[in-house]
């Protein structure tokens, strides 16, 4: 039987999520910031599939399918917004929109 415990997969997912979080907070390029959110999605997906496997049901995988759907929708909308913002200020710097406080 599989000697790997659930903890191994949870640890990988947690580390990947935190790396994505650090990247989201530090990088200033809008595209790389969205790439880091995708990295966080990866960590969550590993967690969900590992839980589904170790509990022996399919809910985890079904959940990851919906996470993929949301990620695809988010990527298309976010990249459309990035193109729009780039046309306005001609830069990808997130700090260019610093005055947008609300």
């Amino acid at each position, binding site marked *: 039987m599989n000697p790997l415990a659930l*903890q191994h997969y949870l640890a990988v997912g947690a580390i990947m999520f935190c790396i994505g979080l*650090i990247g989201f907070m530090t990088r200033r390029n809008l595209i790389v910031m969205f790439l880091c959110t995708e990295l966080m999605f990866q960590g969550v997906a590993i967690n969900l599939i590992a839980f589904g496997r170790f509990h022996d049901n399919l809910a985890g995988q079904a959940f990851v399918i919906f996470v993929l759907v949301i990620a695809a929708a988010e990527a298309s*909308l976010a990249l459309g917004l990035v193109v729009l913002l780039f046309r306005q200020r001609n830069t990808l710097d997130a700090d260019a929109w610093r005055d947008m406080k609300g």
Partner: protein
Amino acid sequence: MPFFLAQAGGPVLPAIAIVALCVIAGIGTIMLLPSHFHPSWRKVGGALTAATGLIFLAAVLRHEAAEHQTDIHSVYFYIFSAFGLVCAMRVITHRQPVYSALYFVLTVFASAGLFVLLMAEFMAAALVIIYAGAILITYVFVIMLASQPTSVDGAHPTPAQQMADYDNVSRDPFIAATIGFALMGILLFVIFDRAEEITVASLNPTALSEGIARQAPAVEGNTQELGVYLFSHQQVSLELAGLLLTIAMVGAIVIARRRVTIPESLAAAPAEVVVFPATPVDDNPHSIPVYGTDNPSQKAYPET
């Protein structure tokens, strides 16, 4: 009492070791992130982070070797997870967005490998197709579209100088690394010290899966099982997901389209159709030549 709960090995890592490793990895990450520091700082930071990762890996391996015999499954697990995490670090530390996107593709491949190890073959394929094939291509397109040539003084600019300033300098790396590695330390502490060890063998399959998977008709393979599950238990969610994708597509088109301005002279001119004896060489309607104007909205087929 199952055998793996009775061992006296204790936790994988003591809490103080997790804290120390997270602090060192945080310092290494701060030095690795793009900044104005001398390039040698990045090498030191990379060495620090890699050393931390190796120590962590060695601790986990030592713990495992004391309790189980290692098989090929866990070898693949360590290869995939180490590869994926190294590529994830490169995603957030590389200066050039294109390279970040390409390293993210490698991370997706590593995750797909982990999914295969978790008996989720369909999700592994879907991840590679959707993420590496579709979403990342979109990212790379937008990066190409939105990158601008920067003019740098000097005859021989280094590659770092050619990058835009917002790619070269990161924002608040100290605060971000503190928050991120604090969260990582807490999560690892909970996962390794506070959770009881769960393996597939430790769970009673009949007890936990009484509802969902067993009611489905007996089919072969993960993909078929997942399909039966989705269309028998998640129908409404599936339809909503399709609706959401459609709405997102319409929204993205509305957001990103650019209004084409037609010059006044062309817009005011009457539609001009050049009538010419055009004889198709065959039955294919596309072989009819199209005559028109510069104004694309006035293009018309000649009347024969």
